[in-house]
């Protein structure tokens, strides 16, 4: 069978492979090379070594956006997962209307980041102006919390779905056994439910953490980085370095920042992969 199949490789693999080369491999390799170059277009490049990276590390706006993003990613990860797990626990209790609630909480996921950002911009600006405060574009703190609220609203439903699936796959014998042994609800949660949910928890933590670091659409639509660059997150900072400023040095800086960003995201993924693996061994 293998032999017959191998002869058909141009039909089965070639289309995807060609598209993958165009859409990923070539731009990735070229992008990596360009981090060492000064350029305006791809055809006119001058090799400058590590200068772009050196600049990226001294760029105050980049460092600021790194800390802004890190704070955002950690805080949103904690909030999203705690609330999502709490909702999932409540909704798996045979409550009336649980399905309706589940449907409602998941809904924001289907709306794109740009539209979500716009909706919340209108809502938050109205709330702020009724309270007599500055609008969101004028205060980075409001921008930060606005992004947190928006991201929670969007992603809690998604994580909740994963937690519900995890909770439903816990064998009911475990829960019954705990009940017979006289465990309180609190004990059952910590000693039975959470240990059996570990794989769902790692997935959700990883998803919300990488989503937090990669956030772009919502950031662009809600704050646009205003005021100044104070609410700019990493992805938006890279985008602005590329497209908001002209000149050959900026493009190289942008590409170097993108490479650093890429390394950061890969590192997080590798840590996650390792932690999932080590837990699989234990079971």
């Amino acid at each position, binding site marked *: 069978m293998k032999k017959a199949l191998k002869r058909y490789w141009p039909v089965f693999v070639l289309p995807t492979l060609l598209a993958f080369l165009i859409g990923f491999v070539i731009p990735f390799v070229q992008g990596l090379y360009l981090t060492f170059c000064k350029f305006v277009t791809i055809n006119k490049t001058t090799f400058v070594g590590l200068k772009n990276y050196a600049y990226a590390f001294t760029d105050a706006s980049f460092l600021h956006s790194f800390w802004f993003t890190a704070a955002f990613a950690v805080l949103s990860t904690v909030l999203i997962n705690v609330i999502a797990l709490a909702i999932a626990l409540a909704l798996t209790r045979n409550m009336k209307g649980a399905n309706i*609630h589940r449907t409602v909480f998941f809904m924001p996921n289907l709306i794109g980041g740009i539209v979500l950002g716009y909706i919340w911009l209108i809502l938050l600006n*109205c709330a702020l102006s009724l309270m007599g405060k500055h609008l969101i574009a004028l205060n980075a703190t409001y921008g930060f919390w606005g992004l947190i609220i928006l991201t929670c609203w969007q992603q809690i439903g998604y994580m909740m*779905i994963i937690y519900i699936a995890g909770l439903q796959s816990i064998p009911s014998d475990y829960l019954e056994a705990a009940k017979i042994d006289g465990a309180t609800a609190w004990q059952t949660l910590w000693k039975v439910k959470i240990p059996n949910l570990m794989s769902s928890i790692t997935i959700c933590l990883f998803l919300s953490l990488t989503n937090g670091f990669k956030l772009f659409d919502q950031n662009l639509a809600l704050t646009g980085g205003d005021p100044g660059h104070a609410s700019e997150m990493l992805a938006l900072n890279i985008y602005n370095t590329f497209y908001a400023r002209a000149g050959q040095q900026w493009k190289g800086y942008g590409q170097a920042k993108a490479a650093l960003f890429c390394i950061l995201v890969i590192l997080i993924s590798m840590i996650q992969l390792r932690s999932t693996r080590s837990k699989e061994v234990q079971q």
Partner: protein
Amino acid sequence: MAKREKTTNTILTVFFTILSLAWVYPMFMILMDSLKKESSITTNTAFQLPSADTFAGAENYVNAVSSKGFLQALGYTVIITVTSVAVILICCSMCAWFITRINDRACKLMYFLFVFSMVVPFQMLMFTLSSIADKLNLNTPFNICIIYLGFGAGLSVFMFCGFVKNIPVEVEEAAMIDGCNPLQTFFKIVLPIMKPTYISVGILETMWIWNDYLLPYLVLDSTKYKTIPILIQYFRGSYGKVEMGPMMACIMLTILPVIIVYLACQKYIIKGVVAGAVKG
């Protein structure tokens, strides 16, 4: 004990009803604003319901639909999403079946690259990818699906591979012995077995491509072709007078079809999301 449980359940029901209402409020607010007259939509009255004075009926919707931009953007978004998802489903499932069954060194390398591409953020590629797309003339809504196939192949191939690994080889071998060539085996035997994975992958990719902003914005010539996310961002970013009424109507018109589709095939969407998350 039973009584206590009952009261907690009542409290939870009330609490969650309020929470659910709060959850849909932002969408409800846009709906209400979209029914107001242009002049009465201002920053600090967004929460007010339309009154007899400010109620505009369907006027904003008529304006939004009759403006050329919206219907065009909707059309482009539909074309891009449908072609890209179709291409991704067919090509990636075939590729995944091949690399799982052959599984030699080249296939393993490809698999590794596909998985690697899932992790790389778009910002790393955006500049080079958009210039390559320009060079190859892949910058119209009709052929941008090639770019989506390339950039989105990672997750799809990965999910299909995960499923193919669980299909017993014997079924396919039997088909081959009975005289099917690999193409027939794939389309008559493997494809029907993989139907649930097609649905899951299709839903995940649709959700991504329908809402994607940056890739089409950079790749397409955005003065000529605007998708819905690009159109909305364009409105928001443009200085000067923005017609808020039609704008709100536009948002409602983009959200509504998505919500209707969601309510109709909720079961599949939620299954697809769980499958994607567990594997991703």
